[in-house]
């Protein structure tokens, strides 16, 4: 368990994951449920346990639409989407990780994509 990572997620999300009462309403309400390996309630529980590594490596991070349905409906005010966002930020901001490989840019390009977006993406996702 990486305590620093857990603390970082607690701080950046502003969520107290211990408020969760394990009702699963977040996962019940999630529109991306079927595409996720780890579901919203698992994000909350695994962050609480400090079991963050599998989440960082999972595609589920990018399947969350940030629609906030779970935030709206959680009876305990846990705000699972904010937890997922914090894990996503942890993955994105890991030092030395290249999430965007320059060689793959040409195949992603299309005419409508503004130049600015590519520059911003490079700033954000590469090191």
């Amino acid at each position, binding site marked *: 368990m990486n305590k620093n990572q857990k603390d970082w997620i607690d701080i950046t999300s502003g969520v107290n994951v211990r408020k969760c009462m394990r*009702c699963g309403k977040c996962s019940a309400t999630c529109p991306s449920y079927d595409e996720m390996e780890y579901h919203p309630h698992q994000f909350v529980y695994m962050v609480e346990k400090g079991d963050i590594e599998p989440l960082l490596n999972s595609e589920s991070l990018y399947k969350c639409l940030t629609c906030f349905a779970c935030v709206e*409906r959680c*009876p305990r005010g846990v705000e699972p989407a904010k937890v997922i966002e914090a894990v996503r930020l942890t993955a994105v901001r890991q030092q030395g990780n290249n999430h965007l490989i320059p060689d793959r840019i040409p195949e992603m390009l299309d005419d409508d994509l503004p130049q600015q977006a590519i520059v911003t993406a490079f700033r954000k996702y590469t090191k």
Partner: protein
Amino acid sequence: MQRIGVFVCHCGTNIAATVDVKAVAEALSHEPGVVISQDYQYMCSESGQDLVKNAIKENNLTGVVICSCSPRMHENTFRKAAASVGLNPYLVEIANIREQCSWIHKDIASATEKAIILGKAAVAKVHLNTPLTAGESPVVKRALVIGGGIAGIQTALDIAEAGFDVDIVEKEPTIGGKMAQIDKTFPTLDCAACILTPKMVEAAQNEHITIHSFSEVTDVKGFVGNFTVTVKKKARFVDETKCTGCGLCTEKCPMKKVPNEFNMGLDNRTAVYIPFAQAVPKVATIDPNYCLMLKNGKCGVCSKVCSAGAIDYKQTDKFIEQKYGAIVVATGFNPIKPDKYDEFAYSYCPDVVTSLELERLMNAAGPNGGTLLRPSDKTHPHTIVFVQCVGSRCDDEKGKPYCSKICCMYTAKHAMLIREKYPDTEVYVFYIDVRTPGKNFDEFYRRAVEQYNVHYIKGMVGKVSPKADGKIDVQASDLLSNEQLHINADMVVLATAIEPDKTARPLATMLTTQMDTNDFFTEAHPKLRPVESATAGIFLSGACQGPKDIPETVAQASAAAAKAIGLLCKNSITCNPCVAHSDELMCNGCSSCEKVCPYGAITYQDKEFRMPDRTTAIRRVASVNPAVCQGCGACTVACPSGAMDLNGFSNSQIMAEVDAICK
């Protein structure tokens, strides 16, 4: 010269672990007037009390300071001990070094310093204490029960059994409350009406019980043993004494489109109505919001058909005033309306119902005569989904933070009854936890699962979407198999949270009793005085104090009755001598105190006073009725001229305490 004894309690380790009690005793022994200062492990024990008593006798003490727990806990204990050896009990002061010191501090040095300061303040106060004598006031041998549900009925029957007169005030046209709306009761599945209605009839026929139905308490004055209560008997436009309950008026009334409250608005009633067949009193009531005669002056059918001549369109609200010795609050609960939860579609899908609505849908006296049909198209539902904890255990403003306690059991009951009567119906129950603490409760729930094959799924429903074909898509999570389910349901039942009745809060203000943040009445002690409120003479019965099922409600109702009977048995009660009094020479007649007094204890009178040069003058001065005054001290603070003072808590005593603390 004062001779004061100081006694410092260890309270086991409760105080001694954080406060150096020997240092406190030593420091206080040097205070002026202190002749003896001791510490002891448990001052409230018999040997501890003996220590205090012997010290009073041997040292001829004129005042006693006990440094111990809160005065709410043991002030009475030590006052009694002092009185038993001839010291006036009001010469005993408590310095609270437990709740206000040892329990809230960690550092021994600073906690000890604070304990010494608290002790010094108490010594300074006891220097100015004067002996007080408690008076007595008579007890009116009549009880008032507010609320006529099963709690109120049981309390009233038990008080009447003991031979005291008791009045029930019920805001609805009939007594019976929520239990009258319920079909079957868990865990025995006996018919609610069959066990409740005989009790309702018993209450109506008991010579000691008077039922004021369709009435509300509007004003409460007085104090324990001697309350004066005003009850508003709302106009029902029917003479209760003449109406025979034949029901002819309800058959002939042309206004038939009034939502029927008793059936949760699932069918209609007439403008003149009797809530249900076994109503007590069985008297018709005219609803002025719908009656054509009362609204437009055109109709009058009911008065024409009534052979008893009971209809009276000119009836007005009546107010009756009555004296009571004890008041029992039994205002009960209501289920919340789940319309704030958009995800459950309650407000726009008629086939999403609350559990109490389902109760009526399944009841033989309900809108469908006991056949369970969907409200939308009156067809048999074949798949029913129950959602638990709707609005309970919620941390947001939409719901309640507490567990409503009864929902797990009534949902198991509903599921079981449906599977029993309609075996072709699939029943799903979504639960977060199944809570079944009660006699035969878990066995009941297991029967629903094992014998009746109700599908219990650990998880919550996230979204309820009515579809064009009349079915309802229920999207939910199954946490144990870690999957998201879609159930094609015909009906959805929401186990909604319960909340105290809306009339409870204004009533608490009238009764000067305490409530918690959820508007449940607060008991005097959570463990040891569960049916008494902190206000003397006010008792609590049933769900007004917290969520309760029927057996628990009945048990508490009888307990509240026992406490009320204990009070009514006495001919008189000892008053609190710590009441306010005014110095008439200083009073300027400004009425400030009268305005702030919550008990109406202060009145003004014109009195003749001697003035200089043998003249006299009439001055308006305040006087306090000591029997009504509760010693709250509001008047002493409001008085601009310093004329008001409180026995036992005089301004000089409080200033002496402040000086001792600030020295």
